[in-house]
């Protein structure tokens, strides 16, 4: 007996060995969801399928965020012109292996997946004025070789420290590896004081790579404007607050900041970025 996959599929797109981009909704700086939202809007990508949440999310309660009730969502979008599928999802809370396989199964219906990329962020102690790096963890030497021509930091050594757990992106890489599907998790370090707001520069860095690798021909003008706007606002914050300026200057000089200084920096930058132009 085979178990029915948990997706409702809305249409049959003409895809052949597509690539898949994955963004998780819960992520520092909301980078994953911002990147996949940008792609679905700009390409554009049309909703392809939605996953039923019952097996993967606790449904005994709903979470309220910013006054609004949330609900776990897992959706596939597709852009046949670019032979691309995009998956945006909340992080499942149980049956992760089944969840990840279900995603790869559904996209695998259109031929063996060419490549899988997950988008994630990591908290960084760098200043926002430092260009964003792109780091990658791959699941095979073949994809590692293929990514060499891009400006990616790809020599990371890491073991999960005691008391912590691997990311779902690592789990997805492992599942893809067992299916002989090349996959990479992409990571952009985000300055710690932008983690709870947004970091358009980090978003652009991830998108630049995807644009080149998957030949998406994206026009980044709007995103560039957003990067400039944010930089201008933080510059304003620096001129208004000597604490903000001193803190960022320390980070720019790689001097590090104390716990209190970092807390204050986060608070003041957040308040400033929330203000309307």
């Amino acid at each position, binding site marked *: 007996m085979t178990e029915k996959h948990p997706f409702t599929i809305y249409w049959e797109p003409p895809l052949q060995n597509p690539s898949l981009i994955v963004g998780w909704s819960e992520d520092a700086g909301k980078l994953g969801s911002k990147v996949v939202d940008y792609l679905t809007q700009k390409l554009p990508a049309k909703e392809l399928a939605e996953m039923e949440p019952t097996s993967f999310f*606790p449904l*005994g309660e709903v979470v309220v965020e910013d006054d609004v009730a949330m609900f776990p969502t897992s959706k596939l979008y597709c852009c046949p012109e670019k032979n691309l599928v995009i998956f945006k999802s909340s992080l499942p*809370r*149980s*049956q*992760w*292996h*089944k969840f990840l396989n279900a995603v790869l199964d559904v996209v695998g219906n259109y031929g063996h997946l060419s490549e899988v990329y997950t988008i994630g962020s990591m908290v960084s102690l760098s200043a926002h004025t430092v260009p964003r790096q792109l780091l*990658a*963890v*791959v*699941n*095979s*030497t073949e994809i*590692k070789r293929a990514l060499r021509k891009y400006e990616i*930091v*790809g*020599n*990371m*050594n*890491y*073991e*999960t420290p005691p008391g912590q*757990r*691997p*990311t779902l992106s*690592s*789990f997805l*890489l*492992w599942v893809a*590896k067992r299916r002989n599907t090349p996959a990479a998790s992409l990571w952009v370090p985000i300055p710690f004081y932008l983690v709870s707001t947004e970091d358009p520069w980090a978003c652009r860095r991830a998108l630049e790579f995807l644009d080149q690798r998957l030949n998406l021909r994206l026009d980044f003008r709007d995103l560039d404007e957003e990067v400039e706007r944010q930089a201008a606002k933080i510059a304003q914050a620096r001129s208004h607050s000597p604490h903000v300026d001193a803190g960022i200057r320390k980070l720019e000089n790689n001097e590090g900041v104390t716990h209190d200084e970092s807390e204050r920096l986060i608070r003041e930058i957040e308040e400033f970025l929330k203000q309307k132009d």
Partner: protein
Amino acid sequence: MTVRLHTEPRLENPVLVAGWPGIGNIGIIAVDTLKGMTQAEEFGEIEPWDFFYPRKVLIRDGELKDLEFPTSKFYFKRTANRDLIFFIGEEQPLGGGGVYAEGDKAYEMANLVLDIALRFGCQKVYTSGAAVSPIHHTMKPRVWAVPNTARLIPEIRRYENTVLMSDIEERGGQGTITGLNGLLLGVARKRGLEAVCFMGEIPIYLQGFHLPYPKASKSVLEVLTAALRISIPTTELSTFIERTDGEIERLYENFPPEIRQQLEKLRYVTHTKAQSQEPGPITEEDKRGILENIDKFFKKEPKGD
């Protein structure tokens, strides 16, 4: 969802002894000690990925090399009296979002464990866990025994330092066992196997501290070895007990004085059946008062796991 067997040992009417982590890790310490001391050999494991989230990733030079999952392994030992199968799960599968196993995944795992037990001709199962009790940490923990059939009650009554639910003050034979250590009893009953869960007592005020409580594991081990008619050295476990006793004593000294004063009364709790023996040094009313205060402070309900 598969069980991988590395070898198929020939076993004669083996008994299954299973353990998962729980409060104070009482059950798993007992089962793991027994497995280690009998030098049981690994012979199979349940593939983990359908049950667990990975616990460790290994990345070298930018490449994911390995993902490590909690293990669920089977071991066997032939002894002069009887053959044994051990099952040790490093984690309980969490299907319902709680701390202990529940839902489909817990049921699937319990059935997989019993599939292997039945495949090797096993007809009896022992599991082990914790019984959160109003006792003091200086006392020798009793073992609460819950069988899945009334036929086993006479056997349980023969074991020293062991009580049935009906022997426990105010319980009247009722109670619950949380997680897989309990669920396995029920699934064994459904599949026609006799099973008993032995739960070592842990003081109510220690249940929330994520500390091992090997003193109770030792009590469980004494009953388990009696049930299996084997004897094992417990020197290593005694060293472990000495070490944790020291940690618990230090923790206890740091409790607020008013709480410690209440807890001190638990030193004088006697496990008496109210109608059959003389009352202990503290009354039932005292005990209720202590529990209410402890409960307010630690915000926990007494239960078994």
